[in-house]
């Protein structure tokens, strides 16, 4: 009972703050403190969101398919690379610095190059998402594989387990926790990555739509897109959390008293 009450208060606090901020924003716009074309009020944004809903969905579909393709490819690639880096010490030593190096290159800086090389189609978008999502997932998986208890590996060896069996029974499931943490990050990165890639060229997608409404100074629509991107990212994170719950039943069934 008290726990339920606590959970309600825990949700009430941020909800109250958000409502207060929205009211303040509405008030600022309504009183003309900021010109309306520069900062549309929340009500305007909501109106634009509803009015533009069919178009928004159409573009969201494009961006989401890019995001999923990119995320899927990044997933496959990071599994492959992390597996090889875990199995072969020389692969780890060779690839690790390169991995870090790719992270020092700002995504926004290479996106125009990708468009130049790969055109205005879906390919440069997917590649950009792969570049963005690949790193956190590879690092997460590698850390997860390495988190397996060395005594456990010793025991498996003593039972005559092969390298492949040790990977399958010990290392892979040991990495689940860290894998889902990095998937959570990557899922939201993938949507943002798609939007950034679309800014730089393309015919469809939320990023393209965003550029279009920006050029026509339709800031209410601009905010509507931002709202949609936030909603999509949140939903994706929730989806990953749900997946994690399903994939890791043991994590829920921990008795805390020993």
């Amino acid at each position, binding site marked *: 009972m008290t726990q339920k009450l606590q959970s309600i208060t825990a949700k009430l606090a941020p909800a109250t703050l958000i409502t207060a901020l929205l009211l303040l924003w509405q008030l600022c716009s309504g009183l003309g403190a900021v010109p309306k074309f520069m900062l549309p009020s929340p009500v305007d944004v909501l109106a634009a969101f509803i009015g533009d809903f069919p178009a928004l969905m159409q573009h969201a579909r494009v961006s989401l398919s890019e995001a999923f393709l990119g995320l899927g490819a990044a997933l496959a690639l990071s599994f492959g690379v992390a597996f090889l880096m875990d199995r072969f010490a020389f692969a780890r030593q060779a690839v690790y610095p390169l991995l870090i190096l790719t992270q020092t290159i700002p995504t926004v800086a290479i996106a125009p190059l990708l468009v130049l090389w790969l055109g205005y189609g879906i390919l440069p978008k997917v590649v950009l998402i792969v570049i963005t999502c690949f790193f956190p997932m590879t690092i997460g998986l590698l850390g997860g594989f390495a988190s397996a208890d060395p005594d456990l590996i010793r*025991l498996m060896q003593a039972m005559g387990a092969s390298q492949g069996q040790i990977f399958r029974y010990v290392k892979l499931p040991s990495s689940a926790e860290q894998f889902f943490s990095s998937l959570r990050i990557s899922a939201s990165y993938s949507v943002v990555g798609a939007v950034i890639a679309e800014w730089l060229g393309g015919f469809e997608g939320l990023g393209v739509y965003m550029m279009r409404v920006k050029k026509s100074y339709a800031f209410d629509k601009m905010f509507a897109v931002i709202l949609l991107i936030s909603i999509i990212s949140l939903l994706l994170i929730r989806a990953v959390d749900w997946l994690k719950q399903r994939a890791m039943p043991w994590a829920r069934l921990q008795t805390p008293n020993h």
Partner: protein
Amino acid sequence: MKLQTENISKQFDGVPILEDINIHLQEGELVCLLGVSGGGKTTLFNLIAGLSRPDSGRVLLDGQDVTGRPGQVSYMLQKDLLLPFRSVADNVALPLLIQGMDKKAARERVLPHFEPFGLAGTQDQYPGQLSGGMRQRAALLRTYMFGRSLALLDEPFSALDTITKGNIHRWYLEVMEKIRLSTLFITHDIDEAILLSDRIYILAGRPGRITHEIPILEPRPRPADFPLTPAFLDYKREIIESMHLNQ
């Protein structure tokens, strides 16, 4: 002869850890290896389990040379090392899966053992839901499912409280008898060693050598008040003295 080590020596980075270790184990015997921490006990276990190779000497199991060949003896450590993400039944079935049995057959093989091992009703729980004593039983059942007739136990009960430990000792001796297991047991607990063993080897010095071999002649099953008898204390005194002489 179940197990015999012949003149085993091992060093790490030029530092000798073990020198000229000769121990043996008869069929069905429970032998303790007693020594201070860091004295090379675990190194010796890894050598016998085939996880590493000695610099010189051989390991004979049932008369066969098994030096450097893992998978020949059952092996259990102080930590229960159950996989948290597998149900108890799937944990216990792991050695069978490693040997190539399919998942369903392995499960059917392990389930009948849950009752005699005192694990009834836990098969679909996760290790995180069990108490320490239960987890150690599950780990023992897994060791048993591995099906080797020699078990190496590296301080398997040292993390348990005294009462749980006493129960599990009694229970282990029963199980051992039933399945005719031979056991080589590492401990630094002198009382535990006297209580359980047929013989005790004392490993001491740097590099580690077997300095004493002490048979415990008390017949089995040993009465509950054995630790309170003068005979027990005599053994204890003998062991403490022999350990001190080497320091």
